[in-house]
């Protein structure tokens, strides 16, 4: 026999306005505090420092692994004497110059690539040629061409920023939806205004990722260049500081220099890039 559902009574309800049950329940202070990213990350850093300190004490060999406290002391001393500050400032100066130059070049290349077939082929060929080439491998040639000085450092840094950023930006441009492109063209946008008003904001998540990778690549290349080739730019930077102190077996200062590199990395990540993300792509709902 076929299954038939039962026929039930109909009913209607008159709804009185809801009172007494709140629509939203506030989180407890503890829950709210724990939602702060800086707090959670701070706890992780604290745990790592504790681990370091205990391993260092257990090893008990200042030459191989100074403890966290020793490193912190060397770090504070370095800052107090102004030496660490100066070295960091020298490194950062070169880094920022090269970074900005790399961004400008990457933007020019990708704009050319979205507007012409030749630009597309050029960008494709150049990135597949140069992206896998370690920037540091170009330093000997750069030293020949530009001599000892900022020029050669900037050359290799631009090389490390440019391709990573260009590839990411171009991928971002390609991902912009047809509807948005048509909307932009519908309103009479073309050429550079089209790139600035439609493509760049729409591709911002990819561009930000490219900027992050470029920044990291540039840092690595800079420190490596200074480590391998010493005071390339006449006065040494942070890498030179590390190199020199290793030669004189001030291991705690070596660690202080490394800590500086890490700290700057953390600061730029959380202050610059995360802020940039929060006020743009997160706010616009383009990224979670």
């Amino acid at each position, binding site marked *: 026999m076929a299954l038939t559902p039962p026929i039930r009574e109909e009913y209607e309800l008159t709804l009185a306005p809801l009172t007494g049950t709140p629509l939203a329940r506030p989180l407890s202070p503890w829950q709210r505090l724990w939602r702060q990213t800086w707090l959670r990350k701070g706890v992780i850093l604290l745990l790592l420092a504790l681990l370091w300190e205990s391993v260092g004490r257990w090893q008990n060999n200042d030459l191989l692994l100074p403890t966290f406290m020793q490193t912190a002391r060397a770090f504070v001393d370095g800052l107090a004497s102004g030496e660490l500050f100066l070295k960091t400032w020298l490194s950062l100066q070169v880094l920022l110059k090269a970074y900005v130059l790399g961004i400008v070049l990457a933007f020019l290349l990708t704009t050319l690539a979205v507007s012409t077939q030749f630009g597309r082929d050029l960008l494709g060929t150049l990135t597949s040629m140069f992206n896998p080439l370690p920037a540091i491998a170009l330093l000997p040639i750069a030293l020949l061409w530009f001599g000892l000085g900022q020029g050669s450092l900037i050359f290799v840094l631009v090389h490390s920023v440019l391709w990573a950023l260009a590839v990411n930006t171009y991928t971002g441009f390609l991902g912009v*939806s047809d*509807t*948005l492109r*048509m*909307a*932009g*063209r*519908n*309103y*009479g*946008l073309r050429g550079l*205004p089209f790139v600035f*008003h*439609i493509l760049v*904001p*729409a591709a*911002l998540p990819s561009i930000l990722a490219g900027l992050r990778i470029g920044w990291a690549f540039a840092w690595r290349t800079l420190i490596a260049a200074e480590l391998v080739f010493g005071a390339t730019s006449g006065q040494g930077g942070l890498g030179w500081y590390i190199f020199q102190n290793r030669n004189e077996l001030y291991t705690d200062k070596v660690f202080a220099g490394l800590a500086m590199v890490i700290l700057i990395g953390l600061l730029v990540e959380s202050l610059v890039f995360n802020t940039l993300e929060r006020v*743009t792509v997160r*706010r*616009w*709902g*383009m990224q979670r």
Partner: protein
Amino acid sequence: MHNPAAETASVSATAQTAQPLLQVDRVSLQYRTAQAVVQATHEVGFHVHPADRFVLLGPSGCGKSSLLKSVAGFLPPAAGEIRLDGRLVREPGPDRIVVFQEFDQLPPWKTVLENVMFPLLASKTLPRREAAERARHYLDKVGLTRFADAYPHTLSGGMKARVAIARALAMQPRMLLMDEPFAALDALTRRKMQEELLILWEEVRFTLLFVTHSIEEALVVGNRILLLTPHPGRVRAEINSHQYDLGSLGGAGFQQTAQRIHRLLFDEDAASPSAQPINFSDVRFSY
């Protein structure tokens, strides 16, 4: 209640006296794919007059969206010509604003107000202050004043469609081109949007070119319907629907016209559909 013959006659009489706003003359459209050149439409022609709500109706593959893109200037015709105000349409321009079906037509980095101002500023139609003023006026018309400072990702589908319509109206374009603007909405919201669109038309009297694949929507929204048959798109008929609105959904005349359109589109035997009366919950009306 209606005398269709008399009405048709009077409409064509006014149509002959007035100058059409948009003239589409024997337009053939082609798509180039990797393998072949596909013929989207074959010698399609129609006229749209000021304040028309002209609907392009047909099953998928009839080239109705391609026709709209061509009028917008995105797709140049392979043969034939499209004239707006007598001038040849060559490229996209702010005198023909398109409302797309997709929700991502609103740049997510602009607030609702900025979105409505965007075409006004991009096309340098108005300076910023006046653009904001006009944008607020049209946001008020679509009932979104409260959400002026919200970002699009926080809005519902229907609200996004309203923003897109306000944005198009704020430009006060010569023509408003809508490419299945309500197709991605749920049925209840779609009904509400059709109603609001008609109310807006009563107020503003814009000229509308509307693409849809729903017979019901075509009859409700349009005052004249161009029927296209698929592969490639060719004109099958032009039908008047100015007498219908959302109130006439269940009526006999409405049902008859719907059946007639159905027959014309699918080349069914004239006798067969009358044997089974059309039921409006029938899936055929919401393809």
